[in-house]
């Protein structure tokens, strides 16, 4: 066999192209004669539209069309509710262009199509809209009160959803408790800020009746289904392509954004290609956000520190609409007990409408909030019981012999009972303690304090349900001319390295190098069954589908090669792009085997001569293609997970706080994580480190500053503080590999892992560092210098 590729640090196939600037993003697709779109967006958080006058805009030179809700025909309906759930009584979704009312600053009111974006923006400025502003409430708790202004007139108390889940007997646990601790914590609103904003381009071919849409989406197949349905076209007449995409982080999985419908509509109506390239300001105002949750969590414990019960009540900000259902809140509520046994759980949430852009999953999807709540509560419990923070966790972690560990009564995002399938939680905690130098930290801390420096240790554990169904597929084909292997799946990639890890999986089965495996995805013409890229699921779901498919193709190759080389199939081994007779120098290249597997009439090249009707290798008694046989070396198969597989990890940090300037420096950051078998450790480390960087953003920097009037004060990358490389410390990442029993490859997802625990780690470390000043509490992230200053002021420093 060749060297095993699964598990190797294979360099990414996609990188040379991207690093040379040869990537093709939506805006790079050549579309001669294309028109460009600009939107007029609402300047009000909540208002009635009294009138819209587009006449001056329509007269502006270079303008092809101006659309309001009156001009878009059948599209003027509320967009789909993607994930229905009985906890929502009156779920609201948005119309492509506002009709009657606007519900947040940035909502699309009118669309201008013009010869270029400059002209389109000039014309948009000429549209006159008269608004009658309405009162609004931005505060989550106040929005629920009886006299609060309503986002939607027919949704009392702005209550979008209310849901309770119970596991075990929490009332009994709290009655038995020897100690109860309770805190309220908050994680603030943030945004994914992908490097490439969203983008859509469309071309309508009136001759063939085909609509082609380039969309920087995480869900091309789902978008295709939606467009076919909206425009009443056969699915085969709609092609959706997600070309190179510069980051998604969940923001690009929502469908539809208004432009995804309106751009194809304009292309069809105007008979010219149309494109819309979202700019950064629009990404801040009009694309999904996530995070604000306020949790009040109580832990019922025995004096030993064993937690026997948990109650959590939280408010979840869902924005003005709820197109993605309760997914974020549901993931938070089912992740609330983290990696701990805690057998009795009561978790309740209220999702609240606020006059802001909709909330849908952003990398982490409710888990950072749940982790912040449980981990901060565990720290407080440890302090109150006089236990070390590592020790209290050690006493509560699910032990290896307790898997699968079920939480009866908690249904995860896949609609199935939470079942933590496998792991070595205790070992991960011990590794984190060792890597942090926790044993000697107290001495180090004391020494630093003597020098006037304030060091703290921060710690947090997390779990992550990954690899949601329903299914994905894989298609594998060996090309008869080149011998290269083509692989397709129904996902799209936003930079994760799918093309490399899927290639590694296939390379092992077919005896080729990963560089000779060409992965094409994100194009409904390449593969048109599947769902989308989200929920840390690509490696788990598509990875296993492709693996299953590769096994089938492997079997076909071996059978065909055995026939050609006239040996038993078990005498064949695959390596170096060929089938070899074991222990000999006899071989047949994969290209030749693929060619011979396709009965030919025409010898279009030398290799093909061997497959034509008079060639010796083509001798057969029956028809050239036997009943039930297909030509070539090709297969398609699917994988549908029985349930989610749960990854986990422990993060820790040594943090220095400068009380004079109230600044925080992460001196050391340690991540122990386990995503099952790793297909490519280098790519895993990239995912984890990227997640940690985003987590540091959420812990210390990234905060959407909504004003009381609904305006976002920092809708730019100058004022919304995405951390630079200068803010990200070196991170030591240590791997544990506990294969999941749930899928053939033994893999779990890792896309979101890095970001989950960081907020809790940082807050925990800052508290520890400032202990000499008193019992300061940090129960909110992002944690700003101002908050530290305020806390110090409270204790008279």
């Amino acid at each position, binding site marked *: 066999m060749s060297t095993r590729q699964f598990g190797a640090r294979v360099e990414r196939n996609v990188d040379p192209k991207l690093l040379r600037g040869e990537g093709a993003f939506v805006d790079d697709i050549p579309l001669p004669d294309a028109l460009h779109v600009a939107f007029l967006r609402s300047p009000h958080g909540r208002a009635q539209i009294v009138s819209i006058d587009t006449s001056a805009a329509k007269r502006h030179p270079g303008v092809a069309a101006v659309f309001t809700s009156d001009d878009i025909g059948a599209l003027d309906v509320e967009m789909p509710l993607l994930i229905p759930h009985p906890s929502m009584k009156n779920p609201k979704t948005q119309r492509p262009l506002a009709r009657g009312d606007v519900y947040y600053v940035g909502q699309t009111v009118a669309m201008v199509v013009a010869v270029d974006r400059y002209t389109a923006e*000039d014309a948009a400025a000429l549209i006159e809209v008269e608004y009658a502003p309405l009162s609004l409430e931005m505060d989550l708790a106040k929005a629920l009160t009886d006299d609060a202004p309503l986002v939607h007139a027919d949704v009392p108390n702005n209550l979008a959803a209310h849901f309770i889940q119970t596991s075990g007997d929490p009332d009994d646990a709290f009655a038995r408790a020897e100690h109860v601790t309770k805190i309220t914590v908050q994680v603030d609103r943030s945004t994914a800020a992908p490097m490439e904003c969203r983008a859509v381009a469309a071309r309508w071919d009136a001759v063939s009746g085909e609509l082609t849409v380039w969309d920087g989406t995480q869900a091309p197949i789902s978008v295709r289904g939606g467009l076919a349905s909206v425009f009443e076209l056969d699915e085969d007449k709609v092609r959706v392509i997600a070309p190179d995409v510069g980051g998604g982080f969940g923001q690009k999985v929502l469908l539809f954004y208004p432009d995804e419908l309106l751009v194809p509509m304009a292309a069809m109506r105007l008979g010219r290609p149309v494109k819309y390239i979202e700019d950064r*300001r629009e990404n801040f105002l009009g694309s999904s956000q996530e995070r604000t949750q306020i949790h009040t969590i109580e832990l019922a414990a025995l004096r030993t520190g064993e937690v026997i019960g948990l109650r959590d009540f939280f408010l979840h900000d869902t924005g003005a609409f709820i197109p993605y259902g309760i997914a974020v809140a549901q993931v938070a509520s089912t992740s609330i007990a983290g990696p701990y046994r805690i057998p009795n759980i009561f978790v309740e949430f209220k999702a609240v409408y606020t006059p802001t852009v909709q909330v849908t999953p952003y990398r982490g999807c409710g888990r950072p909030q749940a982790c912040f709540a449980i981990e901060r509560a565990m720290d407080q419990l440890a302090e109150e019981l006089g236990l070390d923070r590592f020790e209290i966790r050690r006493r509560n972690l699910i032990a290896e012999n307790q898997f699968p560990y079920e939480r009866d009564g908690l249904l995860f995002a896949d609609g199935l009972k939470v079942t933590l399938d496998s792991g070595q939680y205790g070992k991960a905690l011990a590794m984190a303690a060792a890597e942090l130098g926790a044993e000697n930290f107290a001495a180090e801390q004391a020494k630093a304090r003597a020098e006037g420096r304030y060091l703290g240790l921060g710690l947090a554990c997390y779990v992550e349900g990954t690899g949601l169904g329903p299914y994905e597929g894989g298609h594998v084909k060996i090309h008869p001319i080149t011998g290269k292997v083509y692989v397709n799946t129904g996902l799209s990639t936003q930079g994760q390295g799918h093309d490399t890890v899927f290639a590694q999986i296939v390379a092992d089965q077919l005896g080729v190098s990963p560089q000779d495996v060409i992965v094409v995805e994100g194009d409904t013409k390449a593969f048109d069954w599947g769902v989308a890229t989200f929920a840390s699921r690509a490696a788990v779901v598509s990875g296993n589908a492709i693996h299953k498919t590769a096994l089938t193709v492997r079997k076909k190759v071996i059978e065909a090669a055995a026939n050609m080389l006239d040996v038993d199939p078990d005498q064949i081994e695959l390596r170096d792009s060929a089938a070899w007779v074991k222990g000999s120098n006899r071989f047949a290249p994969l290209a030749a085997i693929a060619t011979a597997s396709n009965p030919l009439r025409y010898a279009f090249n030398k290799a093909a001569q061997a497959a034509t009707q008079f060639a010796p290798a083509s001798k057969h008694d029956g028809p050239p293609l036997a009943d039930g046989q297909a030509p070539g070396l090709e297969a398609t198969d699917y994988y549908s997970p029985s349930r989610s597989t749960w990854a986990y990890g422990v993060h820790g940090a040594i943090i220095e706080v400068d009380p004079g300037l109230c600044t925080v420096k992460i001196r050391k950051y340690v991540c122990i994580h386990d995503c099952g078998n790793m297909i490519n450790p280098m790519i895993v480390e990239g995912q984890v480190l990227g997640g940690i960087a985003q987590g540091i953003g959420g812990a210390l920097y990234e905060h959407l500053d909504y004003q009381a009037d609904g305006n976002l004060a920092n809708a730019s990358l100058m004022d919304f503080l995405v951390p630079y490389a*200068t803010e990200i410390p070196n991170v030591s990442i240590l791997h544990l590999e506990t294969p999941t029993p749930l899928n053939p490859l033994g893999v779990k997802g890792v896309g979101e892992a890095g970001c989950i625990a960081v907020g809790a780690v940082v807050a925990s470390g800052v508290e520890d560092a400032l202990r000499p000043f008193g019992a300061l509490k940090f129960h909110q992230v992002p944690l700003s210098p101002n908050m530290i200053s305020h806390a110090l002021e409270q204790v008279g420093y």
Partner: protein
Amino acid sequence: MKPSIFGYQAPTSIDEAISILAGDPDAVVLAGGQTLLPAMNFRAANPSTLVDIQHVADLRGIEVGADVIVVKAMTRHREFELDAEVARVNPLVAEVMQHVAHVPIRNRGTVVGSLCHADPSAEMPLLLVLLGGSVIAQGPSGQREIAAEDFFQSFLTTARERDEIITEARFPVLSKGAGWAFDEVTRRHGDYAIVGVGCVLSLDDGGRASRVQLAACGIADTPVRLNEAENTLTGTVLGASDLDAAVAASAAAVTQPDETHVSQTYRRRALGTLIRRMVTTAAQRATQMETA
């Protein structure tokens, strides 16, 4: 984020540039473009015409004289930062420059452009005020010199008339034996300062401060020379109680109101911390210069 329609002119002489400005009330000067162009993309600035001064003769370069460093209008931050002669006569410049945005921005942005923008959190205005420098303004009626403390009038507002071009800035050199220091607190590396403090001081033979210059940015609507703190510290050995007094004397200089993430109280705390640290560092350097 595309600008509205604007005109563009590329004069080759100062007089030509001034006459364009004088003839069009909505024309503005384009130097490095690091602030103006983003503002135009946001349509926060909608000039009728950009008067690009990069082709104007005599607006490039740095001249180091006996008492003053002359920085011409088109001199980029990076040139000022890396100039060996400047570093020799005023090592504070390079120290301040580390904090100005990021290298790609410093490669294009100009020192004089930053002064004219007059962001009260920015480093260049603070440096000019701290050193007691000046600018030369040239307009239809000739040239005038404007002292730093008169130049910065309020938030993003200077004494420059709209048909004037600031042809150069004049930064004094440090006196022999002077110690210097600058630091600032920011959320991220390269951001505008929340608070920044610069200090230049000289010690007499007895180790007492014979001259103290102290200035801060980020605390008011202009950079501020902390005169009361300077007076408090002058003549002292810069001990802990002297620093306490200087910090107390500076508290009232913080007039910037509370903002979402930065309270006035936090600004005062940061200002006090930076005054202590910068005075101490400058004094150490002055002592080292003396013993060297």
